[in-house]
């Protein structure tokens, strides 16, 4: 008599599945399954609630009744501008962080990625103190150029860039670190100078991560609330972005708030679908 466990039932279908994937039983133990289901419910139910409660009959009216179009247009162009600025200055910073070594580099990396973990409202306060009319930079801008930043669309773009750019930086830096530098060496032996190597070899090689980082950055900028409302306020048509519009609409026009939320949900889904190659197949975006 050998020490063999009792046989259990194994259907032909399960046999095929296991043969295809290889390995042992993939049935989920109950102590893992229950919490997993709770997590799913917690994440999905609110969205279902939003969809159920939506004023489907008069969605158009709900949207046009508010400053929705204005807010949406403002949100789209400020988030896009913030992303463009992040690409212009964030990608070079990512390259510097990934490819060079200098004293204090770790500290610098920590500093520029701080907005990832900093409460956005603190970022807004910091921006206000630096660029406000009495801030140490804002004062100079005011006296030299007569330029006032807070509570303007420029402030919206700045708040969004401040909060969203680190997402792009860490994504691109990670891609640069894991990219095979052999291609860059090959390009150098073929006569390419460093800037040509960057433009014609490095950038195309990290293009997928660059795209993912840009979308991530854009989505974060689109949803920005705390830093924006602190630094830019909420003037309809000027600085009232979609999230801020939703927040205020909830008080006096819930239908409009729900309709606006649906629009943002739709945008998010589009973003997620465009990222599916990087996220939904598992692994990290970096």
């Amino acid at each position, binding site marked *: 008599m050998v020490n063999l466990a009792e046989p259990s039932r194994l259907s032909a279908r399960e046999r095929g599945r296991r043969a295809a994937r290889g390995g042992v039983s993939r049935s989920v133990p109950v102590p893992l399954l229950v919490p997993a289901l709770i997590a799913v419910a917690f994440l999905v139910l609110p969205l279902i609630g939003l969809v159920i409660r939506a004023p489907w009959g008069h969605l158009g009216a709900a949207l046009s009744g508010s400053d929705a179009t204005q807010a949406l247009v403002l949100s789209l162009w400020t988030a896009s501008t913030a992303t463009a600025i992040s690409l212009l200055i964030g990608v070079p910073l990512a390259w510097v962080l990934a490819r060079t070594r200098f004293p204090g580099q770790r500290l610098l990396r920590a500093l520029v990625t701080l907005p990832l973990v900093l409460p956005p409202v603190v970022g807004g306060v910091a921006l206000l103190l630096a660029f406000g009319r009495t801030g140490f930079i804002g004062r100079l801008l005011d006296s030299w150029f007569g330029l006032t930043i807070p509570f303007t669309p420029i402030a919206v773009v700045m708040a969004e860039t401040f909060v969203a750019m680190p997402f792009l930086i860490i994504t691109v830096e990670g891609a640069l670190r894991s990219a095979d530098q*052999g291609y860059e*060496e090959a*390009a*150098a*032996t073929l006569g390419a100078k460093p800037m040509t190597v960057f433009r*014609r*070899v490095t950038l195309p*090689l990290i293009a997928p991560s660059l795209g993912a980082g840009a979308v991530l950055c854009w989505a974060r900028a689109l949803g920005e609330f705390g830093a924006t409302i602190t630094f830019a306020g909420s003037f309809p048509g000027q600085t009232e972005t979609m999230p801020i519009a939703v927040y205020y609409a909830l008080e006096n026009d819930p239908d409009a708030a729900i309709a606006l939320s649906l629009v943002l949900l739709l945008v998010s889904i589009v973003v997620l679908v465009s990222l599916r190659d990087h996220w939904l197949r598992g692994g990290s975006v970096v």
Partner: protein
Amino acid sequence: MTDGGSGGLVVEAEVRRGGFTLAVSLAAAPGQVLGLLGPNGAGKSTLLSAVAGLTPVSAGRITLAGQVMDDADAGTFVEASGRPVGFVFQNYRLFPHLTVAENVAFSPRVRGLGRRAAREAASHWLDRLRIADLADRKPAQLSGGQAQRVALARALAGQPELLLLDEPLSALDAGTRLDVQAELKLHLADYTGPCLLVTHDPIEALVLAGQLIVLEGARIVQDGTPAQIARRPATDYVAKLVGLNLYPGRADGSQVRLTGGGSFIIPDHGQHGDVLVAVRPSAILVSTESPQHSSARNTWPARITGLTLLADRVRLDLDGQPPALVDVTPAAVAELSLDPGTQVWLTVKATDLEAYPPGERRAPSGQVSDPLLS
């Protein structure tokens, strides 16, 4: 050796990398294919990297056609992008986001040609390497042999004054290797500049290179023509590569006392002092009884420790004074019932022993002083 004054490459340098320091001095003349042979970690790739400008030298200098590319003492350095070098990397490093044609046009383009002229230059090289039909493919869609040709075309399209090949055939499977090797030999024959070819495959080195340098432990241990090196290996590594038994010893006229024990009688050419004795595995005879009547003067007992079947013969691994590798026919193995543990007698004629002084590096090539070599 050539001075490399007109178009040649001269390296007299040390390269520090990680824990080791590579120290080499070599020269390659225009049109010459200089093979760098050595085990992994000997510093072959480091040397290519220094010549290409990807790693600066820590001492000494590298010149091409008399012009300094790198000089540690003077503190001058020409960046990799400024050196007229074509580099075929071990895994080719074809740009995955560009088509074959764009890969080949890369160097002409970044070296200043217009888009159209660069494309024409590329198509010239694609035609020349007979890969024009691959022009629109991406590197991921190429076979190993095709990728090798594209890599060579890409390197040559920059019209380099110096060609560097790092294990150009090692990524290929055995089947395509011979074809690509034969083709590579033709293209190298057309190439007019000096060429450094790194390999750890002796056959590749023998077929492709006109002159060989053996690197071991970050030092040059031997140089010469492939024939010289195959005949008179300077180290155990080279002897193993070319399939010879090699014994260091001290000669005194016709008598050689081997360092590892045992002795040989060699033809007396008045050699005295340290020598290396090389003998082919097929020149040693195996018998199960002590040979009584033989003209050979070297006979010693040995015990078989291993048998390996090679293509058409069996290689015996023998322990004795000295130990030896011996090739016999499979029939002989059966007739003499040779097994591990079997005691046998080994016999080799004095004239089959190649005795020469060690450290023949820097011996002028082409001069043969030993009648055994002729």
